[in-house]
């Protein structure tokens, strides 16, 4: 049930991040079935899907926290599938994990310093991050565990940015945050992209994803059900892909090839 709309690949540029036929298991259960995707430089690539569809598993596998059964992850042509997560981070795949996961007993500034410890040279510095999030400079000595959800999310993103990643992975940014806070955070994306980063994000809020993404990828029960540009897929297609219901309308559904 994979639907690809026409004209959705951005030209002939080589993909920065390439996932090929990724099969992932949690013990005996199969979480992902032969997932493939390509993220091109400067894109915002969004992975959407219902709870349990495998979105976070995919992101975590790309980050290296989970080993795939088969398949590969390539960064700029180099196979990184066998690299431990810390080495992938040093290569430029940096993830902002689900639930923020700040170092609670460290201060805001210390969190950023840790993020920068193994970072690459680049435009993002601790100063620049603190500038982008105006409140951070004044509160930089505050314990990260005492911040609000939105503030923690900002620090988590900042911690990833100071490493000057090539691909920034964002796992469920909106989880547990008020809509206005989510908007504000996603509003920072253009600034982030302007410095040459590429973003791969997982988002439960479909409309939010459709607003910011240059391409979307829908998962259902570990399988790809939709892939394409937001402006070239209809709401009905997205709904069908998301929920796995039989979609109305001809020519919109292709038979899934046998796995």
């Amino acid at each position, binding site marked *: 049930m994979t639907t690809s709309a026409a004209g959705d690949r951005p030209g002939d540029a080589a993909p920065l991040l390439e996932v090929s036929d990724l099969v992932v298991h949690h013990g005996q259960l199969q979480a992902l079935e032969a997932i493939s995707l390509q993220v091109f430089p400067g894109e915002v690539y969004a992975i959407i899907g219902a709870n349990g569809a495998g979105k976070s598993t995919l992101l975590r596998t790309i980050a290296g926290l989970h080993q795939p059964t088969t398949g590969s992850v390539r960064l700029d042509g180099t196979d990184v599938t066998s690299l*431990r997560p810390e080495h992938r*981070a040093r290569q430029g795949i940096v993830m902002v994990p689900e639930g923020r996961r700040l170092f609670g007993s460290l201060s805001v500034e210390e969190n950023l310093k*840790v993020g920068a*410890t193994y970072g690459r040279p680049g435009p993002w510095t601790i100063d620049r991050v603190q500038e982008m999030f105006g409140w951070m400079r004044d509160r930089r000595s505050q314990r990260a565990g005492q911040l609000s959800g939105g503030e923690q999310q900002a620090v988590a993103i900042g911690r990833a940015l100071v490493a000057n990643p090539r691909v920034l992975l964002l796992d469920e940014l909106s989880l547990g945050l008020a809509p206005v806070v989510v908007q504000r955070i996603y509003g920072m994306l253009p600034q982030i992209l302007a410095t040459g980063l590429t973003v791969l994000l997982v988002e439960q809020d479909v409309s939010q994803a459709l607003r910011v993404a240059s391409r979307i990828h829908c998962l259902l029960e570990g399988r790809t059900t939709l892939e394409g540009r937001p402006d070239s897929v209809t709401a009905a297609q997205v709904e069908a892909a998301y929920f796995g219901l039989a979609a109305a309308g001809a020519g919109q559904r292709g038979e899934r090839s046998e796995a």
Partner: protein
Amino acid sequence: MVWVNAIVQGVLTGGLYALFACGLSLMFGVMKVVNLAHGDLAVVACYIAIGIIAATHVPVLWSFVIVVPVMGVLGYVLQRTIIQSALDRGVLTTLIVTFGLSVVIENGLLEFFTANTRGIGTGLSLVTSSFSLGSQIQIAYLAVVIFAVAVVVLLGLQYFLSASKYGRLIRAVADDKEAAQLAGADYRHVFGIAAAIAFGTVALAGVAYGMSAQVDPTAGTDTILLFAFAAVVIGGLGSLWGTLLGGVVLGVAQQIGAQINISDEILAGYLVFLAVLVLRPQGLTTRRAQS
């Protein structure tokens, strides 16, 4: 005045206990490992010092310079190999492996050095003499020096943890090792550094102890491990100064117990430890209760 003397002795002993305990506290705080062989490492360091002094006739104080780094390196290696393997397999395995190490070390020492007690004879008048405060308080110079060393070490450790790159990494990994990985840190290496510090400090404590008392192979568990852990628990995990406080409370409790009945010294310490475990398991300095 006898009681004041008891309290003073207890406070000074508390410094040594804190020195024993800070490594245990670090390993537990960072890696969630209760190293049951912790005390035996101090005894090993002591025996190494005795051996080096006997073989090379270096001045006694040089033994610190040799033994502490050696034990530190040993700590890093042991952590990266055996202890990490055990950690990967779970808490039960870690306890069993460290317990196994403790038994192997103790019995190994028994085999090679017999059960006779030994000490590090310094020949320095500093070690054996004492001064008086008033008529009933007798303070050994060595005890004061050890207390001072303990405070200096704790200060240094505190500074290292709060201001240095690796100190930050250690605290970060202790909070969330997966998030630290995502930030590019190899937590196994950071664990190794923490273990190296733990082994180094307990070696320092062991050699100091060997100068002030006689050691035998079973001292690691009989006297050191349980006292070190008691100091950590009483003071509260997560605070080095809490460990000092815990050591002092333990020392004072023991001395007061000894005043009541000379053979109750150790028991008194245990009773205070058990009381804290039951009534305030988070210790005296930690505000939040351990879940």
